């Protein structure tokens, strides 16, 4: 009865709903549940490589999800291919090349360093340097203003006094 009473407060009810909803979102969005198929490996090293590759390859269909977290059809197929290639003894570099030839740089969460991806890799650094130069030149100018302009020679002093007197 006490419980029922508590639930009747609109605020409490809202908070409860939000909590239940976010718990649901957390549970159903976790990568562990995204992947429903199971694969068998001979060694834990192979299993670890599969985990690593499917975490770092992006699902082409559902664009902000990696292969391991996606239930999309093409992600399922690509996981199967990754598994097949690992079991056939291909290296990570060979598997990544296979993916690159078909899906391009987009498939990698860490794109390769190539002419087309240079800006992607070093763009932020360029902006940091520009910002740094601007900040430096501003601070230098402020300093030089401080040092030179604060002193008046005798004729300037005289003029200053004159102006001040004229005002009063």
């Amino acid at each position, binding site marked *: 009865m006490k419980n029922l009473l508590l639930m009747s407060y609109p605020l409490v009810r809202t908070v409860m709903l939000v909590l239940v909803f976010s718990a649901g979102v957390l549970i159903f969005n976790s990568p562990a549940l995204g992947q429903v198929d199971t694969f068998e490996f001979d060694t834990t090293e192979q299993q670890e490589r599969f985990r690593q590759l499917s975490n770092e390859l992006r699902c*082409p*269909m559902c664009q902000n999800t990696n292969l391991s977290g996606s239930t*999309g059809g*093409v992600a399922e197929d690509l996981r199967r291919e990754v598994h097949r290639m690992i079991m056939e003894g291909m290296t990570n570099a060979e598997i990544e090349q296979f993916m*690159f*030839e*078909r899906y391009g740089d987009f498939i990698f969460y860490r794109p390769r360093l190539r002419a087309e991806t240079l800006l992607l890799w070093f763009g932020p650094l360029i902006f940091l340097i520009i910002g740094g130069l601007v900040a430096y030149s501003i601070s230098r100018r402020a300093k030089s203003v401080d040092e030179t302009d604060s002193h008046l020679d005798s004729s300037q002093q005289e003029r200053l006094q004159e102006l001040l007197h004229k005002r009063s």
Partner: protein
Amino acid sequence: MQRLKFFIPLLAFVALAGLLWRGLYLDPAELPSMLIDKPMPTFAMTTVEGETIDNDDLPDEMFLLNVWGSYCLPCLVEHPTFMRLSEEGEIPVVGVNYRDRKNLAQDWLLDNGDPFQFSILDESGRFGIDLGVYGAPETYLVDKDGVIRYRHVSVLDESVWQEEFLPAIEQLRAESN
């Protein structure tokens, strides 16, 4: 000159805003295909009707390669366009039945009509991976030498046909002459 300097931040802002404004209207699904100007992947498979086929069975002229599935609603939307193209003999259309079931694909073609010379049966999606497909519908323009020249992602309706494919075909024809 000194005064012009004050406008640098404004110019930088305008440039960045322009870039981001354009970004708002780009379709993130329009990924560049890696297979443009590459030959069709080699295949030896069966059609939805059960005949065996390989690269030699592809048309000798320019053709469309349409990735479809019976589960795919947008495919139903673009279907009348392919029916018209094939009925009017404008361009041959080859289908790739992608991640589907054979009997469902056959039923779909019976119900809606079959605009395809044949449909490659790709139940596992393995051929789709070689094409760099990420979901039906997608349509490729392949030239007479079997080289992929253009890719369109999602529905190919009459307006896409007029605005994207016809100019691309025109250009290819001009190049080969």
